[in-house]
């Protein structure tokens, strides 16, 4: 028996399940091989250490939670609730990853910064600027000139009979339009800088 063969019998020797012939071969090898003697001693110790790991106990709420889940299952088999919980959990777990957490934070920062920028801009810049090609200038146009916005709205909004153009373009709806623009800006930036 060589060292590799001896190693194959460590568990069987430890658990005393070797047949007579293999036992003779194993003990014969260990008797003359110091390396295997040491390795076998460490093997025994590490098995013992693993077996002595303390038992993990369930929480005191295990049974009551299970009974609740079973009751839900009985009422609605293939419970939607359980699935929904899992996907929320998975979503939360996703943002525990540094890369995703970073992307999330970037989106948040950009959204907050964007909102701040849009809200603060008129305070610093009282005079409306002329139209330019950039998104930001278009946003500015929305705040300053409803007439220009009317032209840029999609046809279905302009022709809608349920909502008169005057309703769509009335002052209270302007912030919503702004926010919509901001979201677009934020996501575009985040997806390129967040490292997907």
């Amino acid at each position, binding site marked *: 028996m060589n060292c590799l063969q001896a190693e194959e019998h460590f568990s069987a020797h430890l658990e005393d399940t070797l047949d007579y012939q293999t036992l003779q071969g194993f003990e014969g090898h260990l008797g003359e091989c110091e390396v295997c003697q040491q390795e076998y001693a460490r093997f025994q*110790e590490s098995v013992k250490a*693993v077996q002595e790991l303390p038992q993990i106990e369930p929480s005191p709420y295990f049974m009551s939670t299970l009974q609740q889940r079973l009751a839900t299952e009985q009422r609605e088999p293939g419970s939607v609730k359980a699935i929904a919980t899992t996907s929320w959990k998975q979503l939360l777990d996703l943002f525990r990853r540094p890369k995703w957490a970073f992307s999330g934070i970037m989106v948040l920062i950009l959204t907050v910064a964007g909102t701040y920028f849009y809200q603060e801009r008129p305070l610093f810049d009282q005079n409306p600027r002329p139209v330019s090609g950039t998104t930001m200038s278009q946003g500015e146009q929305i705040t300053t000139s409803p007439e220009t916005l009317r032209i840029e709205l999609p046809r279905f909004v302009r022709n809608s009979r349920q909502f008169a153009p005057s309703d769509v373009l009335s002052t209270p709806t302007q912030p919503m339009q702004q926010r919509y623009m901001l979201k677009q800006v934020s996501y575009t930036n985040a997806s390129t800088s967040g490292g997907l």
Partner: protein
Amino acid sequence: MPELDDELMERYQKGDENAFTLLVRRHQQPLVNFIARFINDRDSAEDLAQETFIRIFKAANRYKSEGAHFKTWMYHIASNLCKNELRNRGRRDRYRVDNVVNSGSDSDGDTEQIDLIASAPANPELQPEIALERKELRNAIQQAISELPEQYRLPLVLRDLQGLSYDEISEVLELRSGTTKSRINRARLMLKEKLKPFI
């Protein structure tokens, strides 16, 4: 006692709700321990253990006491749920699992608090130092186990932490007896190497 489990299962099939509660009480602790040690995540262990019981509850009508044993059936369901869970997590959750093991008493407080209480030595003078040493060793062992490939980790946990026999493990994992034995020996040899700095 597999006979009692089978009897409880039969009683439950006949409409005795209390029999199922008894089955859960008998197996909840080993099942939570098995899952927590196998997937290295105590928080999800409880959830998966409950899911195992729900599957058992749903499949109760198909359960046949002849041939199959409740315990091996339960571990078989739990193993598959764990494997699915680990597969779903994939690389995405790698960060979190590592974090649970490597962190100190902060994020894995629950598990390790229990560990400390369970194995604290009787002599109060030696208590803090030895407890800390033991805790470090336990963390190292859990880390080493979690690093084993799944096909070795699973039989090892069933054998050395759950105390199942080789025949039971073969039944749970649907493996030939020789394969089970060699995988457990291989897993222990790998652990011995991983634990070299500690043992």
